[in-house]
Structures are given as C-alpha cells and as structure tokens.
C-alpha cells in the first residue's frame, strides 16, 4: 500500500539533496494519479505544514517565470531536516533506529 501523501513527500525528498516544490508536487500527483490546481494547492499546503513542523527546511525561493506552475507564484526549494529524517524513522517511513519519542 502507498504511504500517506505527506509521507510520500518526505520519502521523495529523502532521495535527493533538495527539490523544488513544483518537482515534489509533480511526483506526488503522478504517484497518486491526481491532476488539477486543487491538488497542486493541496500538496503546497502539505509542504507548508511539513516546513512549519520543522521536518523539512526551505533552502531557497524564487518567483515562477511561468514555466513551473503559474507566473509569479512563489516557489520554494526544500531539503529534509535531521529532525525530519528522525521522524521518518519513528513513523516507519524509513528503516533504521527509532527514538520512540
């Protein structure tokens, strides 16, 4: 069974040093067979929540020139944080030692 959507975003981010939000969103939409603006915004909010909680860090940002999602939309580049990696271990999204915390 596929992981919960936020879990998929974390797993995907763990496979690269960093990714832009539109890249993550695109991969998630392919994975869960979804399309349309509603889901783009849905995954954007999920990324915001992950960043607020400290599981991922915003390491860059720029305005969309119209090629990613929509012109002048703010885009973020994310990287998984140490805490995010620990949470992935704790929640079984990543194999390894858990803190059980």
């Amino acid at each position: 069974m596929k992981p919960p959507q936020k879990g998929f975003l974390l797993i995907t981010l763990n496979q690269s040093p960093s990714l832009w939000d539109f890249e993550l969103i695109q991969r998630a939409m392919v994975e869960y067979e979804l399309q349309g603006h509603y889901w783009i915004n849905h995954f954007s909010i999920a990324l915001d929540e992950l960043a607020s909680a400290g599981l991922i860090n915003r390491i860059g940002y720029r305005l969309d020139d119209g090629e990613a999602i929509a012109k002048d939309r703010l885009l973020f580049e994310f990287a998984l944080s140490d805490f995010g990696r620990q949470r992935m271990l704790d929640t079984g999204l990543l194999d390894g030692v858990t803190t059980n915390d």
Partner: protein
Amino acid sequence: MSLSLDKALHNHFQRSQRWGFTWALWTAVLWGAWYVPGTAMWYEEPFVSIHSGDHGMRLAATAVMTWIHAVVVLLFLVIWNGMLGKLRDYGRTIVRFRRISKWYALASLCGGPMAIFGSYMAMGYVGPVFAAITSLFYPVVGAIIARLWYHEKISGRAALGMAIIIMGGMVIYGPGLFGEIDISENYAWLGYVGGIMSAIGWGAEGAVASRAMDVTDPDVGIQCRFSFEILFWGILVLPMIYLLTDLPIITLLVDMLTSPMVMIWMVLASIAHAYCYTSFYKSFSLIGVGRGEAIGNLYGVFAVLFVMAFTLELPEWYFVLGLILTVTGSFVMYREPAENISTLREVKS
C-alpha cells in the same frame, strides 16, 4: 525583483498565519455553537428523567450518548473528506497503526474518556462553572507537553496572549463560582479530579495528535481520531458496562435512537463538533498547538453569545470585561510577526 520577491515571501507567511488563526477561530465559534444542542439534549427523554443523584445511570447515559455522538460526527467527517478527495489517504493512514495512527488512538483517549468524562465529573460533583473554568487551562497543558516533547516554540507573545485569554475566560465564568463551590460536599474532590482530568486530557490531545500530523494530513487525522473513539466506546466501554453492571445500556440506546428530538439535537451537535475538531487540528499544523488551543479557548465567549441568541437573556455585565480581555489576548498573539511562526519548533535542521 528582489523587493517583490521579499514581499511575496512575507505575503506567503502572512497567509499561512492568517489561515492558522482563522481555523482556530472557527474552532471556538463551532465549539460555542455546540453547547446549545449539547445542553438541550439533557432536557429530553431519557436524560431528563434521570435523577441528578443517580450517578451510575447518568454516566451510563453519557457513555451511550458520547458513542452515538461520535458515530454521527464520523459520518460528517466522511462527507467532508469525501468532498475533499481524502478518503483514500484516510485508508493509507489508519492502517499504519503501530507507527502512525496509534497516536490518533491515544489522542481520542485523551480528548474522549479522559477530558469529556473529567468534565462531566467536574460538572456533576462541583458544578458547571467549575468545569468550564478548569477546562480553560488546557492550552497551558498542551503548550507545555508540545514544548517538552518536540520543542514547540512558545514565544513571549504567545504565552502572554494565552494568559490574557485565560484571564478573560475566568472573568466570564469566575463570579458564578461563588455560589457553586460547597466545601461541605463530601464528594467534591471527585469534581476537582475531574476538572484536572479535563484540562490535561484536552491539552494532551492536541500535543499527541500533532505528533501524528507530522507525517499525515489533519483532515484525515481527525477522521482517524473519531474512528478510534467509536471503537473504544463501542467495543470496550459499553460492552463492559453491559456485562459488569445491571445498567440498562440497550434501553438507553434504543430510547435515544428512537427519540426524534434527541436525534435532532444529536445531529446538530455532531455537525458543530465534527467541523470544530477539523478546524482545531488544521490550526495546529499552521500555528502550533499552544496558539491553536489558546484561540480555541474563545469558545467560552461564543458559548455565552450563542446561548444569548437562543434564550434572549443578556449575560452579566462582567461578560463585557471578559470579552475585552479575550479579544485583547487574541490580538497580542495574532500581531506576532508572521515570519516568527513560519517554523514552529526548535529542532535540528
């Protein structure tokens, strides 16, 4: 270019902050609204004929009512997540019990049996005003647990705002306490224990649920939480009461389900409760457990306002003072720079 980029960034954080506070405010409005049908239910059969001293029967009726309530709440959450297209994510989340959804099960134990039961104990053995006041302290518990457990940042502003809101709540309910506390009452300690249980239960619920929301969706999370609550009452508590006591669980169940008035109040209460809790959970992931719960505390104000709207009885003058305090406390919190709450925790990056 750089200026508009910075502005876009600021707008982004501000939007997030505004949504977080908006969800928290909806929690308070709907929680306040819930009190009208939630209280009205007690004036219908079978509740109205249960003697106030018959504690066993009262608790049994409460357990049955809480179970039916949770089932109807779940129905409204299924509609909500169905419309949002999140039902499949609910499935993916709830099956991961050992690592993820167990936290929602624990949250349901904290918010359900512990907090609700505690609150009923406080109401029954001391009085409703005492119950309302002790519940006001739940954001303090939530913020402390979130702070110690996963390092949620509690800024000076957030703490000050929270303190002012709690004070406002105490001004609204406090004066009613004088007529209520009776130190000669032998069982009053049960009420005090209940009051503490409700503050700890609701406070802990937010912190525990947030632990699971780290990796799952809040809308999905709340549906998991109520699924576990239904199981808890339905396959554990009610069967135990049925088997171990001679309280008429089945009769209570049938009486409630066949009473049109009880079911009308139940449906109204459940709509309010379902979307109150949805807003509650959504606010945590945007502004944190401490702030979300503190703004949620404004339910005290909205409860008085809704009761006023339905009974057309004006509240006492000190309500205005309490209102001013709670609104001031909310603004102290809301005026914190949006960038400050773009990351809610002090964690290793």
